[in-house]
């Protein structure tokens, strides 16, 4: 039993990363009033670019940087369309999702063509933190790969920036009342571009996590809806970093449970895999209207 709990914690902590990173990325853009729903596309781009970078250089760090760049680039295009050209955010989100998905496959196919055996990269090693990793039960939280630690630290940093610094205050003001922020000298458009691009870069990194930790290779559509579930996580967490981390824990836990329950119970595995998506629908049903939405979400800003 104790063994079970330890394993559950260990695997869940590992599975948090894609949800949390992608969801934090959505949160960052949303806080300036731009809801970027193309996370799935950015994740796939990140997965493809991250895998290729790590495969050809043998260095996962270069893969991660490429994934950040790929996601960020996609985010810049999205920001240009929705902030610059003021096109509908949701429609552009759909287009960029499809674009990222196609481009990710294209780049991969360009490098490898069709192969019977997929090319593989080594997965990220676990790094134990001396001392902390010796604690019984929760010690497994401190014996994880670097990106798990990065996610926890990033959540803390984002929390501190958003709520304890002037930059954070300005950023939130852009999402709540851009006209007032503009009056006070905040460059609304530029702030939106920057936050959307950084957010999308985080989504790209979330995508790179998949080949680097779970599969060792890129497969088309490998993010399997995580980029969209992350929107659910962001709404559930009312676009606050600390609540998003908690929400990611819930989703990662549900995911781990759905794999765990396939052993021994008579429930067909397909229904267990449906579970996270049904959870999102229920979360939407209960929390969509209760979430604290930034007031300016979906509204393009112009000075006129």
């Amino acid at each position: 039993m104790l063994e079970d709990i330890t394993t559950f914690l260990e695997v869940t902590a590992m599975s948090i990363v894609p949800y949390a990173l992608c969801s934090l990325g959505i949160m960052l853009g949303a806080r300036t009033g731009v809801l970027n729903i193309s996370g799935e596309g950015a994740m796939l781009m990140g997965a493809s670019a991250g895998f290729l970078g790590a495969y050809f250089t043998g260095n996962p760090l270069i893969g991660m940087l490429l994934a950040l760049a790929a996601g960020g680039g996609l985010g810049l295009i999205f920001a240009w369309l929705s902030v610059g050209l003021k096109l509908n955010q949701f429609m552009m989100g759909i287009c960029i999702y499809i674009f990222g998905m196609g481009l990710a496959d294209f780049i991969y196919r360009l490098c490898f063509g069709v192969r019977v055996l997929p090319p593989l990269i080594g997965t990220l090693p676990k790094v134990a933190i001396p001392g902390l990793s010796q604690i019984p039960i929760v010690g497994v939280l401190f014996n994880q790969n670097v990106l798990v630690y990065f996610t926890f630290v990033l959540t803390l940093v984002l929390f501190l920036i958003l709520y304890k610094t002037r930059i954070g205050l300005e950023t939130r003001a852009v999402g709540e009342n851009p006209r007032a922020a503009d009056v006070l000298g905040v460059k609304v458009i530029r702030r939106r571009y920057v936050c959307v691009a950084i957010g999308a870069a985080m989504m790209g990194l979330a995508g790179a996590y998949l080949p680097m930790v779970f599969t060792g290779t890129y497969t088309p559509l490998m993010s399997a809806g995580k980029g969209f579930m992350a929107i659910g996580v962001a709404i559930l967490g009312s676009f606050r970093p600390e609540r998003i981390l908690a929400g990611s824990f819930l989703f990662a836990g549900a995911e781990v449970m759905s794999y765990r329950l396939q052993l021994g119970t008579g429930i067909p595995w397909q229904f267990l895999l449906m579970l996270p998506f049904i959870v999102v629908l229920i979360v939407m049903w209960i929390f969509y209207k209760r979430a604290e939405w930034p007031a300016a979400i979906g509204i393009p800003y112009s000075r006129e």
Partner: protein
Amino acid sequence: MINFEIAKLKLLFPRLRPYLLAVLAGFGVVGVLITLMGRNPLDAFSTIITVPLGTAHGLTETFKKFVPILLAGFAYAIPFHARLFNVGGWGQLLFGGIAVTIVGLSLSHSPPPLFLFVPLLILVGFLAGALWAVVPAVLRAYFGVHPVISTIMMNFIAVYLVNYVASTAPWAETEAAFAGHPKTLPLPTEARLPPLGIGGHAGLIVAIIVALAVYFLMKKSILGYEIKAVGANPTAAQVFGISIKRVTLLSLILGGAMAGLAGAIEVMGVHGRLIEGMEFTVGASLGIFGILSALMCACNPIGLPISAFFMSMLIVGADAMQRTMMIPVEVVFVAIVLMVLFIMMLGEKMKMR
């Protein structure tokens, strides 16, 4: 009279200009990419255009793609006029296919009269697609949930449902499941859509009827008027006594029904059964191409058949290009998305002017 026609053409050209520019730009991008890969772009273009239009087999394939893409396009286009983004064509289409397979297989032992079997199954697909859209429609109408998120969740649920039906008794073919490629038993021949010569299969007739019906719905009917009124200005529509809830529910569910029809026709006309992997090769690709063709023509019911046909042509051409020139189809896929983006950007520019 002739002057009048020329005047009309003169008016038409500026409206068509963004489309022509976008298509040229899209082909330009394909050309650059193919040149970078070290191939001859002119050969590729001639394959993309001549195979789907110039060969009998290619034309048949194009029509076979055209039918479900047109219907999946309507699935996005009808709710779009009420500013509801139904990205769930993928899942609704799959559920249509699932329902047709299950009903078709269970009726195969005591088949209904021949002339009823196919229409009955088409109706089943229509209703199944509608049913799959009920959850997002209710979530939108009563709880405000944006349909983009809810419909996508329904897509993934349908994906796993396809796998379940394809690998579970009594529908699954046991040997195939053991071999690791689950698929269901084939539908009886009486439940298949009869072939239609160069036009592919009888689904084309259904698609034409539906296209006419949607035209009348959007341009001549009260419901179509209400859908557009809600899309243009919900507050004003409400003041004039239009129920936003009713329009939301009806337009999303009707959109779902369109996608359900597409799935039913795809299963009855092309594959004859559910096959594992279909959730992506059929569901995702047709659903997404449907959305893209709807976006390409700003969801106009007259423009949609044209853009859906154009899209099908590109897909068949890209397939041929991959087979003969070993250039991955994704090139064309990326170019299509760019074309759609160009069209929307240019359209917006023109509106601002």
